[in-house]
């Protein structure tokens, strides 16, 4: 099989995607045999119900039941619609994960088709949409890896249904009725640079969610938030795929079970999706900073398949974000960041008006931050003794250190997580996992320092640009000296932003610069100007 390498120790879908965690009314009960049987029966019932054979139809009223009839009750009409639906689904199923030979098997394609068809027929409001097939594919593939041959179809269907219960809102394209609304927005549409969400008050569910998540980024990496806004990259451009496929294309295929497991176990609202989304953005944000990227290269990165090779790191960060939100008391380092931001804001207000928008956002942040904390998740997650939440087991919370330690590979992480989740799911609390994370506060401080550092570099850069412009306008006899000093500052700025390695000798040379030795220092000057060009 040409599939990605997956060890036998990976978490099992059947166990790690426990149906109970996906069931809102019954989220503290383990899956009972009865429930599995009910699911089996349900699926069989669906298959029977939607299997239409007009040739053996009971009713013989030929005025209604004939192939040319357009009557809604005509069994033929439904038959043709079904055929069309199947053709549509099949077209997508055939293109599912082409690099994995498992999906080339006609039996597998047929399973996918049957389940998707039954789902589409039984959910009139959220019929089949592209992307659903990849969710199902991940489920079926993992069931297959576990060797679940018997009832594969039914199990896959049950898990798929549960997941789709949560995802269906993101597949909803209700405002798609172009014809009806066309005239009403005709004028606005001709102002092309309007934000999509400004065009119509009733925005699409997924766009709203993606925008909300993006706003949360402000609380964790304001610099990145600001940068993406400056670039004018609408979060829905990449975010729709991230959500609809539950990050299935962004992370390696073999990491899907781990990430999904945490999403399903975290809470019943898929709140972890938000944290993972933000964490993923931050991960990619680091790449933006490595080389100064423009609009297209940033966007290409955001939309690149398998952009993340190490999902563990993102997962870890997402958990840290979640932990931070779950326990507002330990926010001291963050408040440092906030102070830095506030003072920076004061300085910033003196600056050019082009930054007005940015300042406005900053001013709004403090109250928003509070709201976020209030909104934050059910209290029961904060109570270590809670028995209502599925998540990591209490027992394993004491063994949570390995999670915080740098494990060398995805596999070992998978093993750890797998052990955690495969034990008792019902008596657990995620927060206990996070609270006992020993390096957490240190990690937080480190992250905050990094953030502050990035802010400093960013604004230093702006100030330097301004200074440089002014200096260039001057006709001072010591202009070179000024430029050399600027060059030094610029180097420090680049060190702070992580673009340059710290080189004390180079800086010392610049400090030692004397106007008499202009020629000797010329290389530094050249270096400086080439840097400017590259920026």
């Amino acid at each position, binding site marked *: 099989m040409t599939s990605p390498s997956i060890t036998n120790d990976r978490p099992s879908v059947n166990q790690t995607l426990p149906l109970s965690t996906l069931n809102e009314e019954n989220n503290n009960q383990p899956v009972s045999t009865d429930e599995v049987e009910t699911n089996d029966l349900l699926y069989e019932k669906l298959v029977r119900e939607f299997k239409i054979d007009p040739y053996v139809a009971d009713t013989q009223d030929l005025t209604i039941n004939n192939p040319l009839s357009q009557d809604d009750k005509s069994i033929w*009409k439904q038959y043709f*619609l079904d055929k*069309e*639906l199947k*053709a*549509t689904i099949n*077209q*997508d199923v055939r*293109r599912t994960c*082409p690099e994995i030979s498992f999906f080339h098997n006609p039996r597998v394609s047929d399973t996918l088709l049957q389940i998707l068809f039954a789902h589409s027929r039984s959910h009139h409001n959220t019929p089949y*949409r*592209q*992307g659903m*097939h*990849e969710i199902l594919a991940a489920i079926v593939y993992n069931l297959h890896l576990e060797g679940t041959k018997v009832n594969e179809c039914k199990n896959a269907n049950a898990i798929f249904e549960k997941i789709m219960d949560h995802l269906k809102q993101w597949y909803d*394209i*209700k*405002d*798609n*009725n*172009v014809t009806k*609304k*066309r005239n009403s*927005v*005709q004028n606005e*549409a*001709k*102002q*092309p*640079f*309007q*934000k*999509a*969400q400004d*065009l*119509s008050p009733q*925005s*699409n569910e*997924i*766009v709203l969610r993606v925008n909300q998540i993006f706003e949360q980024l402000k609380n964790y990496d304001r610099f990145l938030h600001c940068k993406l806004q400056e670039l*004018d990259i*609408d979060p*829905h*451009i*990449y975010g*729709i*795929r991230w959500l*609809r*496929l539950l990050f299935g*294309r962004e992370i390696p295929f073999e990491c899907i079970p781990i990430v999904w497991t945490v999403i399903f176990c975290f809470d019943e609202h898929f709140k972890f999706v938000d944290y993972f989304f933000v964490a993923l953005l931050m991960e990619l944000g680091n790449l933006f900073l490595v080389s100064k990227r423009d*609009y*297209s*290269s940033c*966007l*290409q990165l955001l*939309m690149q*398949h398998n952009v993340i090779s190490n999902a563990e790191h993102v997962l870890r960060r997402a958990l840290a974000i979640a932990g931070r939100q779950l326990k507002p008391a330990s926010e001291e380092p963050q408040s440092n960041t906030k102070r830095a931001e506030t003072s920076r804001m004061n300085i910033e207000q003196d600056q050019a008006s082009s930054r007005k928008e940015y300042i406005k956002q900053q001013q709004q942040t403090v109250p928003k931050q509070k709201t976020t904390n209030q909104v934050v998740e059910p209290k029961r997650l904060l109570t270590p003794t809670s028995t209502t939440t599925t998540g990591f087991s209490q027992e394993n919370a004491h063994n949570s250190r390995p999670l915080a330690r740098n494990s060398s590979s995805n596999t070992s992480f998978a093993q750890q997580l797998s052990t955690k989740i495969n034990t008792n799911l019902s008596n657990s609390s995620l927060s206990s996992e996070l609270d006992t994370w020993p390096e957490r506060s240190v990690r937080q401080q480190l992250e905050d320092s990094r953030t502050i550092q990035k802010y400093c570099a960013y604004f230093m850069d702006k100030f330097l640009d301004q200074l440089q412009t002014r200096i260039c306008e001057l006709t001072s006899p010591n202009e070179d000296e000024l430029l050399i000093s600027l060059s030094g500052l610029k180097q420090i700025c680049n060190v702070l932003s992580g673009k340059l390695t710290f080189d004390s000798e180079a800086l010392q040379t610049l400090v030692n610069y004397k106007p008499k030795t202009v020629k000797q220092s010329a290389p530094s000057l050249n270096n400086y100007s080439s840097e400017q*060009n590259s920026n």
Partner: protein
Amino acid sequence: MLEKATDRSYGMCVGKSCLLLQFTDKRFQPVHDLTIGVEFGARMITIDGKQIKLQIWDTVNIIEMSFNLCISYYRGAAGALLVYDITQRHTFNHLTSWLEDARQHSNSNMVIMLIGNKCDLFARREVQKEEGEAFAREHGLIFMETSAKTAANVEEAFINTAREIYGKIQEGVFDPTNEVNGIKIGPQHANPRTGERPSSSAEKGGCC
């Protein structure tokens, strides 16, 4: 319900993503992952000695799109490639309604090129070249038959569209200083360049 189902079966697999990949990466990938939402590609080209950066949006077929997103992808596009598959007549039959939508939602000056893709599969041709030409003439579009597989006319399709847009800038139809037209002038270095920037919509649009 009938209409919706019918619509949905149209407009897929005409080769939008393959065309983009061929243009930006010069390679053909016969089985391409399904586009969810949009994909994005960029390439620098040179027209009349001017460097132009094309930013190209590869959209999902319109039926999979919500209304607001549809508008959002169209906004600010300077040009669009309307693609049908010469081996699937229904993709051609659906052009009229696609074109109507495109014209309603986009800048009225948007350059639209009609593409009959998969011209390497001449044995399975269902739409004659003359039909494509006639449709283009009737609706004021530029027309070309391409093959993302053999790369035939792929460069030309994108570059001609860009050239047409560039022409409109020269004529003053598009104001490059106004970003709402999907065009942005790049930084004026020694080598001035024009960044063509269909902000969120298609330089390349999808059929249906």
